[in-house]
């Protein structure tokens, strides 16, 4: 039922558990019945908005290598020298 057993002092938070389960193709066959209170259209709209925002943020982020180079911290650039003043 997609239920996560929570321990108060768990080293990994629930989202990590969801990711590791689904990543290994362990999908719940059921879900928390309370979810049925939300109309499907609302749910679809919320999910689509979330997906769109994530996509927009990711598209707007620079390339990983370019970002590191920006700081002069990539291994194929020269050493970083502190500038006085």
């Amino acid at each position, binding site marked *: *039922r997609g239920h996560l057993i929570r321990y*108060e002092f768990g080293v990994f938070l629930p989202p990590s558990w969801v990711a590791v389960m689904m990543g290994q193709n362990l999908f719940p066959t059921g879900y928390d019945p309370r979810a049925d209170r939300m109309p499907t259209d609302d749910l679809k709209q919320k999910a689509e908005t979330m997906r769109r925002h994530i996509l927009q943020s990711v598209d707007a982020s620079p390339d990983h290598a370019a970002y590191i180079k920006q700081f002069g911290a990539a291994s194929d650039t020269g050493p970083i020298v502190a500038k006085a003043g």
Partner: protein
Amino acid sequence: MQNTNNSKCQHIVIYGDGLAAQMTVAALATQAPPQIKITWIGSGNAAPEDVFYGGVTTPSAYDFNLAAGVAEPEVVLESDAAFSYGTRYTHWGLAKGNWIQSFHVPFPVIDGVLFNHYLSQQGIYELEPFLTSAIAAKNGAFAHPPEGGGTALSRAEYGYQFDSATYGALFEKSAGKNGVKKIVSEISRIESESAGIRSIVLADGQTLTADLYIDCSGPQALLLSSLKVSFQKGRRIAAVAEVKAAAGPGAPVRTISGNEFGWTAETPLQNGVALMSVFDPESQGDIQSDLSKVEVTLGCREAAWSGNCVAIGQAAGVLEPLTPAPMVLLQRDIERLLSLLPITREMSVERREFNRLYADDFDHADLFNRSLFEGPDFPDTPYWRAARHLPADEKLTNKIAQFESRGLHVAYDLEPFNQEDWTIMHYGMGRRPARYDRIADQASPAKVGAYLANMRREIDETVKAMPSHRIYMEGLTRFLKQQNGLRP
């Protein structure tokens, strides 16, 4: 049992009349999915054992109530409930312990160290002057904490002091608004088998079948006991209780006084005061009272959920109302059930997890109660002897030992009482740490001294400026009535 275990859980029957039933039905009616049919049966009899819920909640009640369709304005306008900063213990033990077990937000952390370690560092013996809720309670003052932290008043959390009759009625009303009304009928017989309850036959011969049965029938646990789930008996206590009228709410705190034969509680309500005496049934002759007595055995069922039947509240377990433990546990039971509402009639996963969490919650709540008896000297009478004559609990021993050693709070998984509750309890019971967190020595003593003195001063000034509980309640009631378009 029919071989339809993959069929959906579509019908839930709740049995009970008292507070547990009212709160459970309201929460289900508001939060369960619409395709689940909810039927509520009650015998129509009063639930005298409701006094053992203690008439006091923790701050968690606000959110619980809201999710069950009961908003605070209704609590104020439609019940006799008053605000509560916690419980004041007096004459506790032969040393006559006297402190206010108040609710408090997480303690401030200064330079990476919890502020109570600085009290130890500075040799300051009393914690109470640093708790806004306790000082306000002492002065009989109350005001809602403002949104956003940073001020002394924002640290004063509160719960409610209530009488079961008018408080429970709020939940019954909420359930009604969501289409669930109690059917008044005695149960004639319960058809059960090893796998669970097959059906319930009512007094008029009508047969009810459900996918899930919820037992809110109080300590008798009518439904659960039909499945032969045994009760792990603890000691037995008796109570006499009454509500006396009063002109307006007294202090926003429940007062529990220890005495030779047990304890008494005085709980101010909006327009009255609830009085209760708890004692060992063997001391009956020593208690002068012509009020009728209610008795109950403390302890819990070996499993709260068996087959297709789950017990909520006292039907699952009974704790002594010395602290808000009974109400905390009742709220937790209901929330736990909601998070584990079965999807189909095959509910072994939900049952196992519910029972695991229940056992932990009951044990951990009980630890907090038992902590009140861990002291050197108490009267040598049946009540106190029974309360103290229990095998040592390793978790409790560990908690107390670590606190007394170095002010360390040992927390077990998802405990119902938190670090603040336990620290205030330890201080109230006269326990002090021998050592403090040495990281505290990094801060300058002068800076710490000034910080603490300022904290005290801010609390004193804040409390002086607060209205009395009575005046605050009058103002709030007037305001809420105006908001509702009612005559003040």
